[in-house]
């Protein structure tokens, strides 16, 4: 693990993220992977706000924030300018799931279709955390948020997560991957691969949010790991549109993950909602089937 610790901190302490912030860790790991020769184009969002109140920036690399939905377009311009000036910095976008899967889709689609040499990192904490935990296109089925609250006639968010990796793979992206802060080295290696692959690459990194999901701050990595162990999050890579690698697991039932988070509390209290839990289990089962992540149990080894 110590290998990701090389170099100095390019994402500095003193930022204003909540204690136990998954996205803050993702930002640190991202810069471990990119090193100094990078320009970051950031979308408005939790990370942007907790890291850059004037004049206290946490970023020790060139960084630009313009608006919520345009970081891919801003990065397109930066990449074009660097090309024209003969410069070598890598251009990396970073945006949350709202900026990426919802409001920024137009700009991202354009940038990917045009084939700019940029890497887009989506830190996915599965809702609009900056503004107080509203539903996004990345909010999973059944999660209660402030705009998809559980209630008498609602069992939380009624739709599954949008499949952004596949959408961007369909744009012809040469490298698309998912990652999780539960596996820091894997994320770092994927970022290195993405920034060294010519053309537009995409990584969606799962970054649990203790505040938004409702768990203790020390549990952030445990939660990220459980998402993978239940099959609700799959770490995989797509090269030229084909899935080439997916992390295999001995799957646990989804409720091991769900029952630890306040956003799913309505599935267990006041009464257990077996049908809803079964629907979420079906999502995990479908993921497992699509990516072939199940490790076959050997009776003897158990």
């Amino acid at each position, binding site marked *: *693990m110590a290998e990701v*610790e090389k170099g100095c901190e390019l994402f500095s302490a003193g930022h204003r993220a909540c*204690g136990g912030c998954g996205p803050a860790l993702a930002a640190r790991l991202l810069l471990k992977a990119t090193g100094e020769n990078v320009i970051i184009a950031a979308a408005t969002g939790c990370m942007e706000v907790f890291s850059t109140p004037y004049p206290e920036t946490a970023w020790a690399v060139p960084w630009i924030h313009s608006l919520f939905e345009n970081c891919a377009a801003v990065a397109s311009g930066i990449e074009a300018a660097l090309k024209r000036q003969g410069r070598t910095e890598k251009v990396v976008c970073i945006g949350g799931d709202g900026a990426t899967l919802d409001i920024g889709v137009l700009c991202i689609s354009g940038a990917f279709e045009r084939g700019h040499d940029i890497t887009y990192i989506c830190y996915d904490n599965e809702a609009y955390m900056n503004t107080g935990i509203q539903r996004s296109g990345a909010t999973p089925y059944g999660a209660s948020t402030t705009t998809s609250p559980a209630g008498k006639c609602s069992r939380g968010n009624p739709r599954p997560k949008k499949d952004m990796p596949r959408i961007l793979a369909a744009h012809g992206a040469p490298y698309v991957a998912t990652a999780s802060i539960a596996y820091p080295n894997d994320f770092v290696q994927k970022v290195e691969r993405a920034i060294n692959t010519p053309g537009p690459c995409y990584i969606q990194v799962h970054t649990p949010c203790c505040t938004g999901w409702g768990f203790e701050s*020390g549990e952030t990595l445990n939660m990220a790991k459980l998402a993978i162990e239940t099959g609700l999050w799959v770490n995989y890579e797509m090269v030229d549109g084909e899935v080439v690698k997916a992390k295999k697991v001995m799957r646990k039932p989804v409720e091991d993950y769900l029952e630890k988070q306040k956003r799913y509390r309505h599935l267990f209290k006041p009464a257990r909602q077996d049908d809803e839990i079964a629907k979420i289990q079906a999502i995990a089962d479908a993921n497992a089937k699509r990516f072939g992540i199940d490790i076959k149990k050997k009776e003897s080894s158990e």
Partner: protein
Amino acid sequence: MALRIGCVAPPGRALDNKTGAWRVFKPVFDPETCSKCGMCTTVCPEGCVRETEEGTFEPDLDYCKGCGICEEVCPKKSIRMEKEEK
């Protein structure tokens, strides 16, 4: 301090914000049982766990928010969260 045109700033000033004050619990590192795996420093969202000359680790309490992730990931259970004395 003169404002920098365009709300632009050089790096470094985040360190002015000593987030250690946010802490309720603080991590106590036990170098005796430390296996020097470095997981605590890798996963710290603040980047405030430093390697000592001995190869063990210690938190920079000026910035540690006391989240407890390091305690959770330590394979040797050599980090313990204690209530902050204020």
